[in-house]
């Protein structure tokens, strides 16, 4: 036993096994070097600051003005970005790297740029409005003439027939205004018109409103403007319609003008005289072309300004973001006015202490401060954060574990084992080397077409490699067996092979060297054979993984020096699991090795029902019966063992400690052992025996029931693998082979397409997903519940590298 412990102590340390040792540190920073020190720490990114002002609201903190200024600057930067993208310019690919600006300078620069831009925008907007007006006028002139010309010709022709009061027959009599209008030479009939332009989407409602307002006494002509006009507000192109309303009467005129106003229709006067029209059109056109050149020049100028901003935009944005992060961090520090220094607390990994000190010294030196920054370690009451140093490869697996719960500080990290067991258990369910190769190709090509899965590319890679391996063992390539490792060990009884399906084959040489013999495929006993194999294999894998979990709980207990947990939890758990399911695994292995015909169901069931009975033909080895009795007794003993002693010992320890006999116990090992380092101080106050007992009871019951149900749960490996292979068989035989049976290229192609789709979407995507989820469950529930607490919190250092876009 001692030897083993020594061996364990001498094991080389694993980086990923335990989270980094952390320490609480205090920083006392003189005000003059504070900003620089924090930004150096941000570049280093190894210190997590604690918020010492959490009771203060954000605007009551010390550096709130600077934070506000940064917010204002990032608003300006967003404005620039918006303007640049609106102008259709790409922000520069090769940003100019300038020597670092001071924040104040940048602020002034930004304000200048913004001012300049806004001025340019308002100028060009004014121009745009004038331009739009002229353009609309031109369009109205062009289109309205179309309505007016024939009608006026018509009017001239029929003028003589018109009596003056032809409209007086109408019920809408406005004699006075009619007479008034006759003073105008252009419309002797009292018929007047308003011409203008309106958004196409509003035209219909506009017409209806006009109709109602004038009680139908109007003539509405419209024509699409043909050109799209830019809406100055939203900078979108809008389709417009030119309209001409003929009406009579002054009151109608005011009404119509009001309606025009309400609908945002712009009215333009069109002279009746054709020569005048032409003249105006000419004038407008020349104005338009002038304006167009001015507008273009303005836009060019603006684009130039925007491009020059674009060169710096990335740098400025990241700089402002950093500054804001620095001030946010400074806001977390305590400000000590009398001593003119800032006091901060934070967590850092112990290995980083030297680096942090070096950075702080650099900051003192660079800001030529008289007083150095004081950096010292403090005692921590609360539990430190959990920090695993991961690389590209292990990160995805660590994420899988963290998704369940972040490890408690320094507890054994299941991610170490997950790196291999996760893809392996996946592959047991997904074993098919054809599909594995597809998956492998996918994993290798991943970066280009699926951003989302990119982080998990190494998981996918290992999953596919293991699928190929398991596929080779199952001997399935899109469900088709291959003779890769030599010929089959079986042959037909005679040459015709007529009774192969009924009487079976005979074995004539050594077993197939690797994996499942290809001859099993299609034979009558294929399913019974494969099921038995996969089921037993699942149980072996499950028992092995659960044992690993319990052993990890031993490592945890050793690490936290809790002999209580080893004696009254780890040992009985080991005994319980292995006396029942460890024994089953042993039987399976013996059966495989000896080729015995024993019925393991029978053995296991009657081990409980009548342990003293003779095993008969099911006996696998000598002394099996007494061994079974011993194991059964051990399992029975293990249950109260893991249930009762621990809470009673805890109670005894507690009462001893708080009855003035504490110092007598200080030296004894038991005292320190049950105390977990993080929660030590909280436990002082109360010891609720019934709570502890109930807790222990729940744990024990969960373990005992879990030993059965978790083992059963591992049978999902068999079930999913069976489902996968049966599904791919169906697609291969019932789709591909069926289609190939026809001598028709179209049917063959259709069959091939259906097969390809089914393989890609059902087998490669959905089956991958389901196997992934089941592997995830086996890890989270069956494996991790044996040892993993997962109630820690993650180390989130203050680091510039971690500041992302959505931060502001």
């Amino acid at each position, binding site marked *: 036993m001692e030897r083993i412990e020594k061996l364990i102590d001498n094991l080389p340390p694993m980086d990923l096994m335990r989270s980094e040792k952390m320490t609480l540190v205090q920083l006392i920073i003189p005000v003059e070097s504070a900003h620089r020190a924090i930004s150096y720490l941000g570049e280093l990114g190894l210190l997590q600051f604690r918020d010492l002002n959490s009771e203060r609201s*954000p*605007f009551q903190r010390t550096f709130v003005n600077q934070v*506000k200024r940064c917010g204002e600057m990032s608003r300006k930067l967003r*404005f620039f970005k918006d303007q640049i993208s609106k102008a259709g310019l790409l922000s520069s690919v090769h940003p100019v790297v300038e020597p670092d600006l001071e924040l104040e300078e940048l602020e002034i620069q930004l304000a200048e740029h913004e001012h300049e831009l806004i001025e340019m925008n308002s100028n060009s907007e004014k121009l745009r409005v004038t331009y739009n007006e002229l353009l609309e006028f031109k369009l109205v002139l062009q289109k309205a003439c179309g309505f007016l010309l024939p009608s006026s010709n018509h009017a001239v022709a029929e003028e003589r027939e018109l009596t003056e009061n032809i409209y007086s027959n109408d019920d809408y009599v406005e004699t006075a205004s009619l007479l008034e209008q006759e003073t105008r030479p252009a419309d002797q009939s009292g018929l007047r018109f308003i011409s203008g332009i309106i958004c196409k989407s509003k035209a219909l409602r506009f017409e209806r*409103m006009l109709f109602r307002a004038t009680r139908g006494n109007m003539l509405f002509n419209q024509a699409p403007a043909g050109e799209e006009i830019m809406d100055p507000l939203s900078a979108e192109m809008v389709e417009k319609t030119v309209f001409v309303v003929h009406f009579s009467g002054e009151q109608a005129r005011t009404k119509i003008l*009001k309606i025009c106003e*309400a609908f945002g229709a712009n009215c333009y006067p069109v002279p009746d005289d054709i020569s005048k029209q032409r003249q105006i059109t000419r004038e407008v056109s020349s104005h338009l072309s002038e304006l167009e050149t001015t507008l273009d020049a303005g836009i060019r100028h603006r684009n130039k300004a925007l491009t020059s901003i674009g060169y710096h935009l990335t740098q400025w944005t990241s700089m402002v973001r950093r500054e804001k992060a620095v001030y946010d961090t400074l806001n977390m520090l305590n400000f000590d006015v009398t001593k003119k220094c800032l006091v901060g607390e934070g967590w850092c990994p112990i290995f980083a202490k030297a680096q942090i000190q070096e950075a702080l010294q650099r900051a003192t030196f660079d800001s030529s401060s008289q007083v150095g920054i004081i950096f010292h370690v403090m005692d921590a009451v609360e539990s430190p954060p959990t920090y695993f140093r991961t690389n590209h490869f292990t990160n995805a697996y660590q994420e899988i574990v963290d998704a369940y719960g972040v490890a408690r500080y320094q507890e054994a990290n299941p991610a170490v084992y997950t790196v291999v067991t996760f893809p392996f258990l996946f592959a047991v369910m997904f074993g098919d080397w054809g599909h594995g190769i597809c998956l492998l190709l996918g994993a290798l090509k991943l970066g280009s077409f699926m951003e989302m899965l990119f982080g998990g590319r190494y998981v996918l890679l290992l999953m596919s490699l293991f699928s190929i391996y398991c596929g080779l063992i199952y001997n399935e390539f899109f469900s088709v067996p291959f003779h890769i490792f030599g010929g089959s060990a079986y042959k037909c009884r005679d040459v015709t092979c007529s009774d192969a399906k009924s009487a079976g084959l005979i074995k004539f040489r050594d077993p197939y060297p690797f994996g499942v013999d290809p001859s099993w495929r299609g034979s009558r006993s294929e399913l019974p054979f494969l099921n038995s194999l996969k089921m037993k294999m699942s149980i072996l894998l499950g028992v092995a993984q659960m044992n690993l979990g319990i052993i990890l709980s031993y490592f945890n207990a050793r690490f936290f020096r809790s002999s209580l947990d080893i004696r009254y939890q780890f040992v009985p758990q080991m005994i319980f699991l292995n006396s029942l399911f460890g024994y089953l695994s042993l039987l399976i292995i013996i059966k495989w090795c000896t080729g015995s015909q024993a019925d393991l169901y029978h053995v296991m069931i009657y081990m409980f029902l009548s342990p003293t009975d003779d095993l008969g033909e099911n006996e696998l080895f000598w002394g099996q019966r007494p061994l079974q009795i011993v194991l059964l007794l051990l399992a029975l003993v293990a249950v109260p063992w893991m249930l009762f002693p621990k809470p009673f010992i805890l109670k005894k320890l507690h009462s001893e400690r708080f009855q003035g006999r504490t110092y007598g116990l200080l030296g004894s090992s038991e005292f320190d052992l049950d105390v977990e380092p993080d929660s030590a101080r909280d436990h002082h106050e109360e010891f609720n025996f019934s709570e502890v007992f109930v807790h222990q009871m729940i744990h024990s019951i969960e373990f005992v029931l879990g030993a059965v149900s978790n083992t059963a749960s591992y049978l999902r490996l068999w079930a999913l693998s069976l489902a996968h292979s049966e599904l791919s068989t169906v697609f291969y035989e019932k789709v591909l082979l069926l289609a190939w049976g026809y001598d028709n290229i179209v049917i063959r192609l259709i069959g091939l397409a259906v097969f390809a789709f089914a393989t890609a979407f059902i087998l490669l995507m959905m089956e991958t997903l389901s196997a992934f989820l089941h592997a995830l469950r086996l890890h989270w529930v069956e494996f991790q519940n044996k040892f993993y607490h997962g109630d820690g919190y993650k180390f989130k250092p203050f680091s510039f590298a971690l500041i992302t876009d959505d931060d502001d």
Partner: protein
Amino acid sequence: MYGFEAMTFNIHGGYLEAIVRGHRAGLLTAADYNNLCQCETLDDIKMHLSATEYGPYLQNEPSPLHTTTIVEKCTLKLVDEYKHMLCQATEPLSTFLEYITYGHMIDNVVLIVTGTLHERDVQELLEKCHPLGMFDSIATLAVAQNMRELYRLVLVDTPLAPYFSECITSEDLDDMNIEIMRNTLYKAYLEDFYKFCQKLGGATAEIMSDLLAFEADRRAVNITINSIGTELTRDDRRKLYSNFGLLYPYGHEELAVCEDIDQVRAAMEKYPPYQSIFSRLSYGESQMLDKAFYEEEVKRLCLAFEQQFHYGVFFAYMRLREQEIRNLMWISECVAQNQKSRVHDSVVFIF
């Protein structure tokens, strides 16, 4: 199908109910209000709001802020949420959601008509309109000279058209007429909404009838108090009360003859739910009545969220958000005008 909503409600309403409950979780809490009340400048308010759901709406506002900008942006958020829900909604929820906005529509109509009467610029008036109560031809309201025209020209296209049947007169518009029109419209609207909710049945009917009855009763009290000392006759006053609610019909009879606030009080104290509201006010006081009613309303609206599978949550959410925007407006005004001592006068905490 009372009691069986759970079976079928989620087919169409489940997603939106989830959405609206999520939105409700974003309402400002008492802690937020406490922080907001401590703000020194409008920038502080912006800073605090940027940590709430209003953040994205305020973040691009340049720094010298105005109260109107804050209110405008906060309303914009409500409108965006409303539009999103309306887009997702199917019948009858979409109709229900549309009903919620009719009140704003009535207010907008009245605003524009009064404004044109006083020769205000239409564009200026349009900016003041509540965005939830906008309809296509709202600007054309300025053309109308009397109610008949108002109806014939513009409102016939809007959902308000049926409510107008009671108040079409050829009289020229004046302030009194408009106010009566507003209340008549509101009465017709509430009654219609009430009927619609009753038709929906189930928990929606139960909860909405409670909320709408409260609304109707509150309007009745307000109409009574505001019409004391005006030339409105008792019969006319009686006609403006909605024909449902706790006060209907006997309370209305009593309210119709009230001549001062204490008589209103005496009439209202016969109804236990309102007794508590009036018992908090001292005699002869009516300023604090609004706040007392708002507080009671908020309490009832919050209770609507306690039950599942009904449409009342949408109504309640919209109302709560509007109350929140009113709170923000009051706080911002107080901060902007350096009247921080009065900040608590009109703020109604929601949670």
